């Protein structure tokens, strides 16, 4: 049986009919065509599927789509406003904080959730926030630098 759910995604109200066994990640990618969030492991290990639900970073591969009912979701597509990139996206570019880019949407969303709850994070807090986001290319240092730079700009 399909469930009728309503939620907000990147500021837009959406109503959908979803099968209970569909994950939030698959709903976002397949039903809403927002393909920024990626499936790396599908099991909570890699963070490439990270989105923000009610202000909190979560692994969208480990949440059911039906659980999104009534929630407010932000994906990487919601970061730029009117064609202007978010400070984090700018600083990721400035610091060359990506190579293949597969982890980047998840990294950005973990970092965004961090800056939303804590605009001036320490290096330790930055590392804690992205500890669940694997990157096989960069070696992380440039990512931490990019998040630091965005935080400085914020303040």
């Amino acid at each position, binding site marked *: 049986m399909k469930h009728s759910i309503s939620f907000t995604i990147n500021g837009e109200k959406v109503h959908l009919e979803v099968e209970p*066994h569909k994950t939030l990640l698959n709903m976002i990618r397949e039903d809403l065509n927002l393909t920024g969030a990626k499936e790396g492991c599908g099991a909570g290990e890699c963070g490439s599927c990270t989105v923000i639900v009610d202000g909190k970073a979560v692994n969208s591969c480990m949440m059911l789509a039906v659980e999104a009912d009534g929630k407010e979701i932000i994906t990487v597509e919601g970061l730029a406003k009117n064609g202007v990139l978010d400070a984090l996206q700018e600083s990721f570019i400035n610091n060359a904080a990506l190579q293949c880019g597969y982890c980047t949407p998840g990294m950005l969303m973990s970092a965004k959730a961090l800056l939303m709850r804590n605009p001036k994070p320490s290096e330790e807090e930055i590392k804690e926030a992205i500890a669940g986001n694997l990157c096989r290319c960069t070696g992380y240092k440039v990512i931490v630098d990019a998040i630091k730079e965005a935080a400085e700009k914020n303040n």
Partner: protein
Amino acid sequence: MNKFQYVKPATLNEAADILYQNGDEASILNGGTDLLVRMRDKMIKPKVVVDVKAIPELKELKYTEEEGLFIGAVVTMNEIVCSDIILEKYKILAEAAHEVGSYQLRNRATMTGNVCNASPSGDTIAPLYVLSANIKIFSKEGIKLVPIDDFILGVRKIALKPGEIVVGIQIPPIKGKNGGSYYKHSRRKDVDLATVGVAAFCNEGRWKIAYAAVAPTILRGYKAEEILNKLDVIDDTTLIPAMDAAVEEISPISDVRASKEYRFDMIRISLKRAVLAALEQYA
């Protein structure tokens, strides 16, 4: 994932009815960080998934001088890590909750889910043993409290009958000087399960020790406790007999994370680190 029916009851009574009617075919969904992985891997194929996150009683986190701490079943690890009362009075629980997975995971994972999953490496379970926690269970017959060591029966085996649901975890108030710590030894700092873990807690000079990931269930370290209780001074040297006792008390296996020989070695150092860290908290 196989197909299933999803229900989100609004009350304990409603949840108990659904669980009773569906028996083994129903699974409770909390943060889903264990359940959904197991469903995805088709290790379990529930016909009905009962999401308990709308039940008001399960959302409570409260402390009273008489009854101590109650952590509702759907309270997340991150809520526990950030709770002022837990940081002040039960710091070992905040420490253990912080050891679980990653930041994102802790926004969903719950302590009750950790306990009900009953994995030998569950990070919050050993600390709950040394705090003498009780599991609060609802059924149509009423509410009952079950000591955690009676609740956990084996790997993924708990004392929960069809129609029963865990409302939360009740931890007695602590009177007098105390300090506790959980030491997790793992291959890497985040998103890894414990290779071995030790929870150490001292209250008015009496120690409680529990070992994780070294047997099918968490084990109490009764021998190590007895030795520690008799020590006047606890330091690197006087701790050695308790460390030797720990080796005798555990029955680890070899698995993907480590050999049993390595676990025998690591339980010694983990016990030492947990006890010394607990002493630093002792006040």
